Each structure stands twice: as structure tokens, then as C-alpha cells.
């Protein structure tokens, strides 16, 4: 194989590896332990709305986010049919302070807060309905 063909193969391999890594991480709901971050708390004042009795689903969105509408629908319907769960969406552009506090780097970023507003799970990208519900059950 020529040197250039070898370089091409290496670039394609890196591309493939990154694609697989991103596909795995996208939408995965990860538990947040307070040793990662020092427990991050969102208050009703931060949100502009009351926290849910059981949990609050927070979605950070931007104007230019292709999967934000679909994520919003999924989270909204979970909140609508599960008692004690509140869903709220935050526009990242107008909430830089919260974006920094919660180290939001992409959109959508989804936070699952417990009844005290403590961040317990997070995900970025399009989440699956079932993964969010499982994380909510793990909270109780």
C-alpha cells in the first residue's frame, strides 16, 4: 500500500471510531454522582417554574438544533403522563449563566433533577423515551 493510501485508511479509521463513539454516547442517560461535579442544584428561580414533586426534566436547546423538537416532544409527553414530573425547556442563548453552571456544551442537553433540584442524570442528543423513564424510576 502506498504511503498516501495508508494515510487515507488511517483517516477513515479515525472517522469510523469517532462516529461509533458518538453514536454510543448520543442520547445515553448517565447518572451524575456528586463527586464528579459537586452536586449542582437548579432552583425554581433559575427555571422560572416550580420544580416537580418527583423530578424535573430540563432541556437546554438552541436555535440551531436539529433534534431539539423531537427531544422536546419525548420529554414533554413523559411529563404529561407521569405524575410529579415537570418538563421545562431553556434556550441556551439566553441563559448563559445556567449553561456555564451546568457545563452545557451541546444541544440538546437534558438534565434530570430530583425533587430538590439536584442534577442526578444527564444526557445529550436525542434521548430514548425508555431510557428517561428508567432513570426517573431509579430516582425513587
Amino acid at each position, binding site marked *: 500500500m502506498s504511503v498516501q493510501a495508508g494515510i487515507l485508511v488511517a483517516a477513515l479509521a479515525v472517522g469510523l471510531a469517532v462516529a461509533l463513539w458518538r453514536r454510543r454516547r448520543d442520547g445515553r442517560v448517565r447518572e451524575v454522582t456528586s463527586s464528579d461535579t459537586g452536586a449542582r442544584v437548579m432552583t425554581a428561580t433559575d427555571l422560572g417554574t416550580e420544580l416537580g414533586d418527583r423530578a424535573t426534566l430540563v432541556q437546554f436547546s*438552541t436555535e440551531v438544533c436539529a433534534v431539539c423538537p423531537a427531544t422536546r416532544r419525548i420529554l414533554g409527553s413523559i411529563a404529561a403522563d407521569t405524575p410529579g414530573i415537570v418538563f421545562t425547556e431553556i434556550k*441556551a442563548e439566553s441563559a448563559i449563566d445556567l449553561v456555564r453552571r451546568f457545563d452545557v456544551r451541546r*444541544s440538546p442537553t437534558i438534565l434530570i433533577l430530583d425533587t430538590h433540584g439536584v442534577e442526578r442524570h444527564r444526557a445529550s442528543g436525542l434521548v430514548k423515551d425508555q431510557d428517561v423513564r428508567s432513570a426517573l424510576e431509579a430516582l425513587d
Partner: protein
Amino acid sequence: MTSLTATEVRPVSVVDPRGLRVAATITTIVLAVVLLLSPHAVAAVLLAAQAIVFLIGATKGPAVSPYGILFRRFVRPRLGPPTHTEDQRPPQFAQAVGLVFAVVGLIGLLTGAAIVADVAVSFALIAALLNASIGFCLGCEMYVLLTRARARATGA
């Protein structure tokens, strides 16, 4: 929402994401050929052409870049209307990033710095490949980080 056909004028600010994927696929192939033919003069010519495509996409938007036009004329008529559209600004920004890599690569080729050229073209190739395969949009991914950086710069 009316269905979008190749002949209707569509709002400039949204694009058919399938057109973006097709453009990314063509870009991936072009950059792969550049990498294979490097440092032959043909590679430089091809890379210069790709840089011009990036430039048009970055300044005028991906819909009217050459690959976007190819999509609209030859592929789009065979497809139904898009299930959703995307804001064109992040892909437009991604084209600007591609342009920077292409120009660096071109300078590398023209000055005999083959490693510089290989690295720059490889980066652009990987970005295009990610976009074509999983719709990974460099502009979208960087948008939040850029918004944070801009806020920091303006003292927000």
C-alpha cells in the same frame, strides 16, 4: 407547510438535510482522492476546487453551493419532500471550517510541506465523513461552545 419541490423558491434560512448529507458524501470522496494523489499537482487542483466549493457554501449557504445545486437538480426530484428541514447556519459555519482546512492543505501542497497538507486534508475528510455517515454537524456541535466563548468575550 407546502411541499418543497426543486422548482419552488424555498426560504433561504432552512435547507433539506438530505442535500447536506449528499454534499458531505461528495466532499468526502473528493478529499479522499486528494489524499491519495498527494502531493501530485492534480491533488492541488482538486483541493483548490474543493476550497472554492467550501467558500461558496460558507458565504452563500450550503443550498446554493455547487454540491447543493447538484442535489437539487439530480437527486431531489427523485425524492419526496423532506420530513424536516434544518437551519442552514451551522452547516454554513462547518463549510467555513472546511475552507480553513482546505486552504492550509493547499498551502502545504504548494510549499512542499506534505505532512501539513496530509494532516489538514485528513481533518477535513474526517469532518465530512462524520457528517455524511451520522449527520454529525461540526457547526451545530460547536454552537453552544461558541455562544459561551462569545459571552465571555463580551463580558456577559
